């Protein structure tokens, strides 16, 4: 086995025993990037020199007591990294070098993680395909004519292509789970507030959440352990006890009550995706769980309420890009307002402008009640759907996306169709719940995953069931052919 193919826990064992060094592991990953990056294009910035230096430093300490010590990680390019360019895949932030680390980065650095680079994404995390990057689209390692999903497409593709050992992404409406699903890896969106958002470039603040994208469920628990916890720098961070999530890595689903929402299995969902969900339900039942159909009646409304709330918050958050304190400034302008307008018009891409416009419209005089307030009320109804379901069930099982990875360019001119690809993931963000995407099968050589949705702060149950399923389907060592 090549070193770059290792999981965190496998690499950790070898590092601890002294059988490999962090520098060897990091070099192996860098060589892999050099070999396959032309085909995948997962990275905006590769931090080669610094990563090698850091790996040597870790080797010198000989301290591999923590799981992440000396292990290369890829970071979505909307998470601030001190002295390392953070662009959000936008022209407006093309030259931005953060003067501070996001809290999650600080935590990774405390654990001696080695940051290998910053991954491509849809501009400001707005999109479902990583085609909206201002720089270049990332390709799906399983089929390079297809999208890796979005907006954390670079992170998911980098993990699937073994261009890192694990990655961090962010999820506002499915941006960790959907690309993890298309790329055949594990992606977890933690409960809102579980992980600090300090240093995450804000898209829609009441929905955004940072989470891990990993090669297997064990790694997912390990990364969550390292990044979660209350943070005084984030007023939306939840002050709940920090669990050891590795204790949930046991095979046991006996007595578990699982609901399968019929609204997630209806029209528009491909047959192979439905059959992956139903086979998973059968498998769970065989192992002692109880599954039955349930209803989450406001699912369709959740999508449209999301596309009011998220752009409204985005229009406010993105007001800070005015060409004064950071980012790119337009070259010729007449006065201050002209400077703002030219900078923003030249700096933002089409999808970002569309969402700023939609959000500004929804918040403008005369429309606030009709759109924004209405959407926030619908959000309450969506949350109540889940509250009711969780009175009876421990877990919800559903598809992650309506289809497997679609072709590059297939939906790029049709935002409505693109928005529909997030229909199974968006309600989870609206309710702030944790959810995980794990691969369970293949259809026409493309990965198909399932989504498990848990109660608030119920990541432990999600990890336990995912771990059990992962062992049962045994897909973990299947790799895309890139050589």
């Amino acid at each position, binding site marked *: 086995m090549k070193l770059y193919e290792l999981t965190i826990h496998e690499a950790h064992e070898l590092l601890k025993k002294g059988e490999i060094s962090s520098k060897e592991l990091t070099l192996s990953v860098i060589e892999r990037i050099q070999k396959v990056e032309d085909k995948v294009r997962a990275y905006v910035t590769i931090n080669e020199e610094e990563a090698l230096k850091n790996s040597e430093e870790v080797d010198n300490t000989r301290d591999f007591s923590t799981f992440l010590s000396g292990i290369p990680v890829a970071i979505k390019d909307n998470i601030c990294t001190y002295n390392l360019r953070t662009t959000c895949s936008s022209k407006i932030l093309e*030259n931005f070098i953060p003067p501070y680390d996001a809290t999650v980065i600080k935590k990774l650095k405390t654990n001696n993680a080695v940051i290998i680079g910053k991954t491509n994404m849809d501009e400001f995390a707005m999109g479902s395909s990583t085609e909206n990057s201002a720089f270049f689209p990332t390709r799906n390692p399983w089929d390079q004519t297809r999208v890796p999903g979005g907006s954390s497409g670079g992170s998911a593709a980098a993990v699937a292509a073994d261009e890192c050992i694990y990655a961090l992404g962010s999820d506002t409406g499915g941006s960790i789970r959907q690309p993890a699903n298309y790329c055949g890896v594990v992606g977890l969106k933690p409960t809102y507030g579980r992980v600090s958002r300090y240093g995450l470039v804000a898209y829609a603040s009441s929905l955004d959440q940072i989470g891990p994208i990993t090669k297997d469920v064990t790694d997912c628990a390990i990364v969550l352990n390292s990044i979660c916890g209350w943070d005084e720098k984030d007023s939306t961070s939840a002050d709940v006890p920090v669990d050891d999530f590795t204790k949930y890595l046991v095979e046991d689903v006996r007595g578990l009550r699982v609901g399968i929402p019929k609204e997630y299995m209806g029209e528009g969902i491909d047959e192979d995706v439905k059959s992956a969900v139903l086979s998973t339900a059968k498998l769970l039942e065989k192992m002692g769980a109880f599954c039955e159909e349930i209803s989450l009646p406001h699912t369709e409304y959740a999508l449209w309420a999301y596309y009011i709330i998220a752009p409204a918050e985005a229009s406010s958050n993105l007001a800070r890009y005015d060409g004064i304190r950071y980012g790119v400034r337009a070259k010729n302008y007449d006065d201050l307002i002209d400077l703002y307008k030219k900078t923003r018009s030249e700096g933002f891409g089409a999808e970002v402008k569309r969402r700023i416009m939609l959000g500004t*419209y929804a918040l403008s005089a005369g429309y606030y009640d009709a759109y924004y307030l209405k959407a926030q009320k619908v959000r309450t109804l969506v949350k109540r759907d889940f509250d009711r379901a969780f009175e009876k069930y421990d877990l919800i099982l559903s598809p992650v996306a309506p289809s497997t990875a679609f072709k590059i360019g297939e939906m790029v001119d049709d935002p409505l169709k693109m928005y529909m690809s997030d229909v199974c993931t968006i309600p989870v963000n609206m309710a702030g719940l944790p959810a995980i995407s794990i691969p369970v099968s293949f259809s026409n050589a493309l990965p198909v995953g399932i989504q498990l949705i848990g109660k608030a702060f119920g990541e432990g149950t999600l990890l336990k069931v995912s771990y059990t399923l992962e062992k049962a389907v045994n897909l973990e060592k299947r790799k895309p052919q890139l050589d």
Partner: protein
Amino acid sequence: MKISKETVEHVANLARLYLNDEEKKEMAEKLSSILEYMDKLSELDTSNVPPTSHVIPIHNVFREDVVMESLPLSEVLKNAPDSEKGFFKVPRVIEE
């Protein structure tokens, strides 16, 4: 809800964006079709439903009022597109 070119111009001004004629036309069409779908929300009676702006109870975070070191000026201005003598440089805003 049909969005007119005039509405697009008004909203673009609020959002501090310039749009050319083609972009205005495209924006009017795409926003209209997106908002048409959003009108589905009016099917729901939400008169007695409270809005949810955050799913967890959030409150202001206060820290002790102690003097701490701030970022050095050079770090603050490092990303500035234009600066002079320790300040961000902006176009003149005071009219003659």
